[in-house]
């Protein structure tokens, strides 16, 4: 858990706690992401995944513990320096009145520009490249209010990439995306990670979690339950204890990836499983949630 040799971890949160009024949302969380790793945060609704991401990005200030970014204490860093190093893609991309997708992506250059500077050709080029990567070039001149939730989510990812961060935090990046874009966007992040980016994403879909991430951190009620490689974390036992769902875990014969079939809620075990699960006993049928 402590220093490992020469270079400090990209993100190293130690005993981080955060609460609002009497409610504790994060309870002494330790988590680490090394450079060039893709780390997934999984856990039920309200477990603290978004809160943890917002704390790691400095948007929220943790009351206890320390977040180290590349060896520097997050809370002592100027907000601009943090933003030049780290980008956060929100789960719900906010509507803005009238800004075009390109204008929004160009805003990603903010932390790299001085107060008296305006965006130049280099910034334009970086913004356009980011839109190409996320396949959002076609929305360039459209205003954000005319885009669908998923389209807007990809535009916000483009903005995060235009920030040219070394650390990318994504809050459920696939939540509004169609299946094709779930694969292309996670594939894109995976590729950038292989090129040296560090990424941490909250994700609900356990099959995608199993397939794309180097490490998973399972969070429940503000605490880390377990962490490790996907096959270590995604076991029927941990899934049942964290989510209250019975699951089967196996190698998918088609993709050869780790696959999870969710059988049904664990409580009321055996008595009247919900609709489809009763028929789906051949283990192959419903591999995705819902």
């Amino acid at each position, binding site marked *: 858990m402590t220093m490992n040799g020469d270079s400090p971890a990209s993100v190293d949160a130690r005993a981080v706690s955060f609460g609002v009024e009497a409610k504790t949302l994060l309870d002494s969380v330790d988590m680490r992401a090394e450079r060039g790793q893709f780390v997934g945060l999984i856990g039920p609704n309200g477990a603290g995944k978004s809160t943890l991401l917002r704390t790691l990005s400095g948007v929220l200030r943790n009351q206890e513990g320390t977040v180290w970014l590349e060896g520097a204490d997050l809370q002592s860093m*100027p907000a601009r320096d943090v933003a030049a190093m780290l*980008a956060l893609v*929100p789960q719900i991309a*906010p509507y*803005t009145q*009238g*800004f075009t997708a390109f*204008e929004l992506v160009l805003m990603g250059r903010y*932390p790299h*520009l001085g107060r008296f500077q305006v965006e130049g050709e280099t910034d334009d080029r970086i913004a356009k490249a980011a839109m190409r990567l996320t396949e959002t070039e076609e929305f360039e001149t459209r205003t954000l209010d005319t885009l669908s939730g998923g389209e807007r989510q990809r535009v916000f990812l483009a903005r995060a990439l235009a920030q040219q961060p070394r650390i990318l935090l994504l809050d459920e990046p696939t939540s509004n995306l169609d299946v094709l874009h779930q694969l292309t966007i996670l594939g894109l992040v995976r590729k950038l990670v292989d090129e040296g980016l560090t990424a941490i994403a909250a994700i609900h879909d356990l099959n995608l979690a199993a397939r794309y991430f180097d490490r998973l951190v399972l969070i429940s009620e503000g605490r880390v339950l377990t962490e490790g490689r996907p096959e270590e974390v995604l076991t029927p036992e941990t899934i049942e204890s964290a989510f209250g769902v019975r699951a089967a875990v196996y190698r998918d014969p088609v993709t050869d990836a780790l696959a999870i079939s969710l059988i049904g809620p664990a409580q009321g075990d055996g008595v009247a499983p919900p609709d489809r699960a009763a028929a789906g006993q051949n283990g192959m049928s419903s591999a995705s949630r819902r």
Partner: protein
Amino acid sequence: MQAVGLTTLRSYRQMGISARLAIGGALLLALVIVVGLISLSLGPVDISVGDVAWIVLSALGFDTPEFGRTEQLVIEQIRLPRIIVVAIAAGFTGLFFLALPLFAFAGAIAAAFLVYGIAVVGGHFSMATLLLAGVAVNAFLGAIVSAIIIFLPDNELLREVLFWLAGGLDARAWEHVRIATPLIVGSTAVLLLMSRDLNLMMLGDDEARSMGVRVGVTRVALLATAALATGAAVAVSGTIAFVGLVIPHVLRLVLGPDNRVLIPMSALGGAVFVMAADTVARMVIEPAEIRVGILTAFVGAPFFIFLLIKNKRQVYSL
């Protein structure tokens, strides 16, 4: 025709920031000059637009042909200061801070921070609370103003207060220009420097913070600067209603939401609008005057409602 207009607008929106500033600025500045010259030439003493132009140029120190002394006096001492007060004050006169001229700055800033203080109670800023707090504080201060008016000892004073409240630009002298100009020009420059932060803050506090904006400090600084400029404007012109609400919103529909363009263009657009309104106010029922604040509200409010209902979506989603 409409299609051509939309295409032009669309390509304007896609230009770089410098081009948008240069083109929009040049067009509006030309309008300021044209409307300004026309406004200067109209009045009880009839002076041609050409003479007006020569008088203004000579006042700026250029060599010009001869013109009449009377005309020169009328322009330099009466109409020019009025016009300049109009022009510089106009971008900022939309907010309804009620305080008498001497205490206008202090009053404006105190009112602004009272409203802001209410909106951030509990540590969380909310736009809806801000607006409602503004309405409440405005009503409260309005009641104080009403009380003051009722207990005013003499009618002469009463007339003066009412005139100022209705917003008026008569009898403005160079003194007023000297008071207001540095404050307003300075504040505008500061607002411009913060306009990119403002763009990010329009996406929400969290978004702005994650992009490296120091949201709390920036908001307080923006508020103080805007209050200062508004206080200076209101001190010299009284409350001229609806300009600050209508002009930025109209320009926003046309030029897009980028505050780096919108702030300077609103200052120029506001100048054009109030100069035109002031000229009309002076001329319609000569030799009497309609209060310019009444006129702007009369024209501004219905026009704004019309825009909201009719055009908003269409023009927005270029």
